[in-house]
């Protein structure tokens, strides 16, 4: 709420809402007080598309430790995927 730590990544992806899969073209990443997860601060990933950035939003709150764990596991998965494609 108060850190104003915010980064935006332009991405190509899809997100699943309650109704359907939708195109996603950006992810805002915040480090701030969370709305729900029980942590003093959290990494919030806010995925959306610029056609309707407000109503397309899909968000996720992670403790900082969980965010680091996910980064690590993504890199492991990408590395394994890269070796498959060779």
């Amino acid at each position: 709420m108060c850190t104003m730590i915010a980064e935006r990544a332009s991405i190509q992806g899809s997100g699943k809402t309650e109704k359907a899969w939708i195109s996603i073209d950006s992810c805002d990443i915040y480090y701030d007080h969370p709305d729900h997860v029980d942590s003093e601060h959290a990494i919030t990933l806010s995925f959306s598309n610029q056609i309707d950035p407000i109503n397309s939003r899909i968000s996720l709150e992670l403790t900082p430790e969980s965010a680091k764990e996910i980064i690590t596991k993504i890199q492991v998965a990408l590395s394994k995927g890269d070796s498959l494609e060779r």
Partner: protein
Amino acid sequence: MKNYKTHDYEGLIAETIQFDSANGDSINAYLAKPLNEGKFPCVILIHHLPGWDELYKEFTRKFAHHGYIAICPDLYFREGNGSPDDVAAEVRSKGGVSDEQVIKDILGAANYIDKLDIFNGKTGLFGTCSGGRHGFLLGCSTDRFDAIVECWGGNVIMDESSINDKQPVSPSSLTENFSGSLLGIFGNEDTSPNPKQVDEHEKLLKAENKDYVFHRYDGAGHGFNYYDRPIYRQEQSVDSWVKIFDFLDNKLRS
């Protein structure tokens, strides 16, 4: 409300209204008014970064229940139409709304209240988080407000690297211009503002002989009266509300 007894009449009306901002356009606000006989002071609520949300609607009704005309402008009205947290996320992605726009929206709300027959002529501000910061900034920008409640206002003390187009001035640098009375509510475990920043805020107020009082709570961090979040601290929150109503009753009803 003070001196309330169980046989007393209580009533309020709360609804969305539109008012003219001093920005030249119209925006929504949530307005709550007591239905009792008499004239009432006003509290303008300045919502926090998470948005014009249900929590702030409940705070607005709380003030009306305690005998205030309470109005909470939707500072994010222009940014879009959606659930409050989705609109707030969009605002956050753009770096927030400008201080200049917030000041004009709050002044517009004050102009709206001025015209109400039930208004007693005294206006206070209540804000938490960015709203607390805006409240203090407004106190430094105009002598319109008699009492300001600043709850954990982050970025009242801003360093050079934080200054930007939307927040071009550190509110603390304007302390000499502060007008009215200030109540500050802070948690000692907060990191924005942290205790050193609150110390600095207080030091500047003291140096300028301003009418202020701070209450600083152990065992509480940022947003400790947000009962809908894990950061809620019941004992500190209940005590802070007593302090808030004592302060506002004293400054706005005499």
